[in-house]
């Protein structure tokens, strides 16, 4: 009886330690917070070069995971000269008045290595719901229970006209595809 209590206590504590959400840091040197957009016939990639993110993943209860991101719009680039100035100008991100884009998750669902992240994004002071898809990858050579060093790929799309970022409508497509590829390490 006594032994059974001890064993069950150990098991419970092991389970508890797995059940806690893990907070991750992003290795910014190995990560890209990017987006692609149509410019006439071409697809061009832009980047957010400065950002903060809080990422907590609960592998057992995905619902308990959270993602909060702040992108610095003043450091955003759009792939080539003039496009970057256009991106930052009043007609698109208006970075003088809105130096940040923020995202807060409200509900994360999924399992295995794929999750759907529902949340709210704020661009140019306008907040709208946004749904993203996240996939987790482990490096080749690691075991299936690897959780310390992972890669997260987040995709989704956003219609810039919903946020009043309507400049250069003739040249630049309305839909932007989000392409985040981040190396993450457990804290």
């Amino acid at each position, binding site marked *: 009886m006594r032994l059974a209590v001890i064993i069950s206590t150990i098991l419970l504590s092991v389970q508890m330690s797995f059940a806690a959400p893990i907070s991750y840091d992003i290795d910014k040197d190995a990560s890209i917070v990017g987006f692609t957009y149509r*410019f*006439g*016939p*071409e697809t*061009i990639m832009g980047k957010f070069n400065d950002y903060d993110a809080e990422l907590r993943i609960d592998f057992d209860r995905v619902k308990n995971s959270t993602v909060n991101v702040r992108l610095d719009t003043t450091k955003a680039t759009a792939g*080539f*000269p*003039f*496009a970057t*100035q*256009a991106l*930052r*100008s*009043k*007609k698109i991100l208006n970075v003088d008045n809105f130096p940040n884009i923020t995202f807060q998750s409200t509900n994360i669902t999924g399992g295995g290595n794929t999750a759907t992240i529902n949340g709210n994004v704020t661009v140019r002071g306008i907040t709208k719901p946004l749904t993203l898809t996240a996939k987790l990858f482990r490096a080749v050579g690691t075991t299936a229970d690897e959780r310390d060093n992972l890669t997260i790929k987040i995709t989704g799309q956003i219609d810039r006209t919903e946020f009043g970022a309507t400049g250069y409508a*003739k*040249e*630049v497509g309305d839909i932007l595809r989000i392409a985040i590829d981040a190396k993450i390490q457990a804290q």
Partner: protein
Amino acid sequence: MWRNSKDRFGTITKSFHWVMALLIMAMFGLGRYMTGLPPSRDLIYYYGLHKSFGILLIALIVMRIFWRKSNPAPKPLGDDARANRLAEIMHRILYLLMVLVPLLGWAGSSASGLGASFFNLLNMPNIAPENETLELLLFRIHEIAATLLVILALAHAGAALYRHFIKRDDTLRRMTIR
């Protein structure tokens, strides 16, 4: 030889004249061509080129005005005082437009929020506030002034040819590089 004499243009003045004439005509052609193009990376390249040469033209016209002030042009040929007076007015308008046209382009680029750079080596400061209405207005005046500049430059060339072939004076010959 380098400087103007009492009756001849020097090499510096001739160089300013012909280099700027060539650049202005090429810029007018490029401006008309690029504003009609569909969006692509090439379009951005052409805009960058147009802005860079525009900045070069501002530098050239400033240097040219200083050069002309310190080194007056020879007296006009012929004794038709009215024709010479007309030519002088024409030259003044051409100089004014050579200053205004690139400045308007620079101001329009500033108002667009895109700015202008000199061959991506030097970013020019903005000389107008970022405002779309102002941008459209400045570029409209830029286009009208540029068109006027080209028309007047062609009229100026026509007058030189008239003097050369009809009046048979040396006006054109003293500006050519031999």
